[in-house]
């Protein structure tokens, strides 16, 4: 790894010298601007960057600020990272900008000249994009898409409302990492409820319990976001009306109405280290006509086991592949290459409901 300060005029010379004589191929498939507003989020984003760059070498411009700090600082650094080994070793530029809040306005001006022309520009935000007032407005028009991690949203209803407006107004592709992470479960549910009878039974649900990886003893504040997305997606696709959201023992319970039938959706954290925090662990559906579906993650496997029974029959249990959208190439493909989803917008509309109140 070679390190330089990149504010000076000798940057280009330094970049060239860093590669010379090392028989390294320098590669950049796109520009990735990462913006994190706290030390904790910066660590989270660094992990995402690592996941991306281990498969896709790209020019990384990492901006880190700290909203909680009163200090006045502005540091820049250029490093040359490499992936692969031997003749397959390629390197790419990583720029790091650490800025205090009061100097953030400088950042876009430092970023713009260092974007590689002719290549896509992706902005990866570690926080709610609708709240970014300083950097994003300056860069958004040059970005191909804005990817954000909604773990940091503060209020579901406000977030969905602002997000829908942003999608409508900004003409930018917004990609929500947590929505991407629910893709595997959305695919699984589409496969399980794949005929009219099963869909009818799902529509006649009495109780849907979605378990997700989280701490039951000391609940993490935003771990339930993937579970929230998954149930809101179901509700939006099946046309259920949200009546009420309440917290019971710190767990979310949502009441819907499908036609004349009441549906309760319960989001339950499960203390497990088998999955990434927030990842959905199981979906259990109990219907008004006594059908039962249990789809649960199989420990140490990339599969879910599906058990289903009705009053008339009990199906043989079977397994379905659960694509790993928590990390790796699948996640990268999902956040960089999939277009803005109509289902995502439908889900946001389902979330944009006053019933949420102060529940989240």
């Amino acid at each position, binding site marked *: 790894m070679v390190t330089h300060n990149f504010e000076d005029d000798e940057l280009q010379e330094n970049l060239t010298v860093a590669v010379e004589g090392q028989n390294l191929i320098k590669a950049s498939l796109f520009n990735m601007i990462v913006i994190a507003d706290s030390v904790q989020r910066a660590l989270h984003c660094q992990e995402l960057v690592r996941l991306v760059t281990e498969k896709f070498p790209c020019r990384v411009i990492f901006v880190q600020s700290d909203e909680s700090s009163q200090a006045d600082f502005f540091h820049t650094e250029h490093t040359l990272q490499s992936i692969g080994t031997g003749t397959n070793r390629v390197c790419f530029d990583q720029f790091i900008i650490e800025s205090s809040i009061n100097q953030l306005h400088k950042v876009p001006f430092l970023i713009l000249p260092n974007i590689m022309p002719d290549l896509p520009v992706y902005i990866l935000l570690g926080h709610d994009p609708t709240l970014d007032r300083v950097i994003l407005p300056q860069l958004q028009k040059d970005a191909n898409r804005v990817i954000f991690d909604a773990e940091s949203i503060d209020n579901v209803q406000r977030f969905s409302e602002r997000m829908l407006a942003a999608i409508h107004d900004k003409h930018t592709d917004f990609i929500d990492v947590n929505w991407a992470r629910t893709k595997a479960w*959305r695919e699984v549910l*589409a496969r399980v409820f794949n005929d009219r009878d099963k869909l009818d039974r799902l529509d006649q649900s009495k109780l849907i319990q979605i378990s997700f990886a989280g701490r039951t003893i000391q609940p993490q504040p935003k771990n339930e976001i993937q579970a929230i997305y998954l149930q809101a997606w179901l509700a939006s*696709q099946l046309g259920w009306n949200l009546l009420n959201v309440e917290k019971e023992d710190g767990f979310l319970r949502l009441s819907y109405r499908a036609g004349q039938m009441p549906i309760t959706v319960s989001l339950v954290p499960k203390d497990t280290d088998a999955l990434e925090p927030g990842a959905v662990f199981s979906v259990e559906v109990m219907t008004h006509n006594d059908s039962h579906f249990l789809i649960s993650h199989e420990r140490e496997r990339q599969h879910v086991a599906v058990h289903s029974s009705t009053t008339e029959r009990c199906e043989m249990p079977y397994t379905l592949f659960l694509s790993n959208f928590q990390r790796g190439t699948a996640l990268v493909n999902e956040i960089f290459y999939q277009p803005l989803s109509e289902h995502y917008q439908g889900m946001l509309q389902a979330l944009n409901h006053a019933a949420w109140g102060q529940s989240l």
Partner: protein
Amino acid sequence: MMTKPLISNPLEESTASKIAEPCVLVIFGATGDLTARKLLPAIYNLKREGQLPSHFACVGFARRPKSHEQFRTEMYDAINKYSRVKPIDQKLWSTFSEQIFYHMSEFDNDAGYKNLDNFLQEIDAKFGTKGNRIFYLSTPPSYFETIIQKLGAHGLIYNSEKTHNKWSRVIVEKPFGHDLETAYELQRSISEYLKEDQIYRIDHWLGKETVQNLLVMRFGNAIFESTWNNRYIDSVQITVSEDIGVGTRGKFWEEAGMLRDIVQNHMMQLLSLVAMEPPVDIKADSIRDEKVKVLHSIRPIPLQQLDQFAIRGQYGPGFVNGEPAKGYRQEDNVNESSIVESYVALQLFIDNWRWAGVPFYLRAGKRLPKKATEIAVIFKQAPGVLFNRSCRRDDANVLVIRIQPDEGIALRINSKVPGINNPIQPVRMDFRYGSYFGVAPPEAYERLIIDCVLGDSTLFAREDEVLTSWKLFTPILERWQEVRPHDFPNYPAGTWGPLAADQLIQRSGRHWRFL
């Protein structure tokens, strides 16, 4: 209980990949090499990646007596040996192996098909495969008609116009016929039981990632399509070079030869993808309509001047990769005075508005110096008024589409060498699939099997494609059969083919690309 059909599932996203319907895949010729080396590893990898339907089973059908367990053990070993991802996932295998079965029968035995029908119904009941069937004919071509006739007679092939709640499809391995007449006869015979949309004629080259990328490269990039015509393109060369000989396939090769085995099917598929007009959409029939138009536009080779357009060759003893290599006539199961060709070079013209006057040079050979398959589009020279002293005739821009190995695309352009003077040298801009996308592309058979499960026939050859191609080449095959070559073997193993092939291209002032 019969479930109601679902026209559209609200839980499926339009952007999501299609979801495969439950089905049973029956492989005829399940004890053969293709099943072990390609089919089962492909099915395993589809399962591993979650592409297969959740309600799925695979039945091997062959003549040798074998238990389910024996077959599973053999397939386990085959997957362990030939799968692109190793080692085998034991947990996955423990459940997947339960979905693999073996059914022993002669291909012409009625009782065997009746038992198969009963067995498949048991599987439907146990695995929820809903009566959907794929029959993969991985047998010698001489059994195709018999198997399809028996399947039809025993109700295993459904009439697709009358049966709507379940489907049956048949994958037919190549070669589809031995010449035009036999291909017609095979088509006529199987049409009694199968509609065209139930027949999947496999050409595994079409499953290769780079071949599929041809359409994207051509029609997804304005820079290429705008120059993709006789105004800018000088010629096109398609090369299929193998360094291996016929090996253990001497008996098969004696009946086939290079023109039948590679040129008539694989190379004509490549040529039609390179030369076709933009389709109206990317549906299977729209693409195949355009490919057929190209085949119809190829100028028939005049038999009285055959040597000016088509060259055949056969390798003699030589050296490949520094090792002595046998000649074709010394290979096992080969006639010692065989006239079967192991090398073909062709000059073809496509008589349409886009390609008028542009020669397409095709060459395919065994025991050439290296393994390589590529399409090279050679552009016309820039006017030589400025740099003509530095640019030689062969410094034209070349766009190379590498099919295998090292899949990718390279563009040769001329560049000034740094310094005070103005020397110019060609340089390459190179795109490699492996290093760019960082993931190994799936095997061709994986793509083709899952496409059949999904009912997508885009990457399979249609009846008129196959017959039109046979129509072009059958007269040449007949002439070559009539006129005995006087110079066989005419190239040593490890060289780039016979002298006559060089002369074929040199007559127009061109030369074969050095690979």
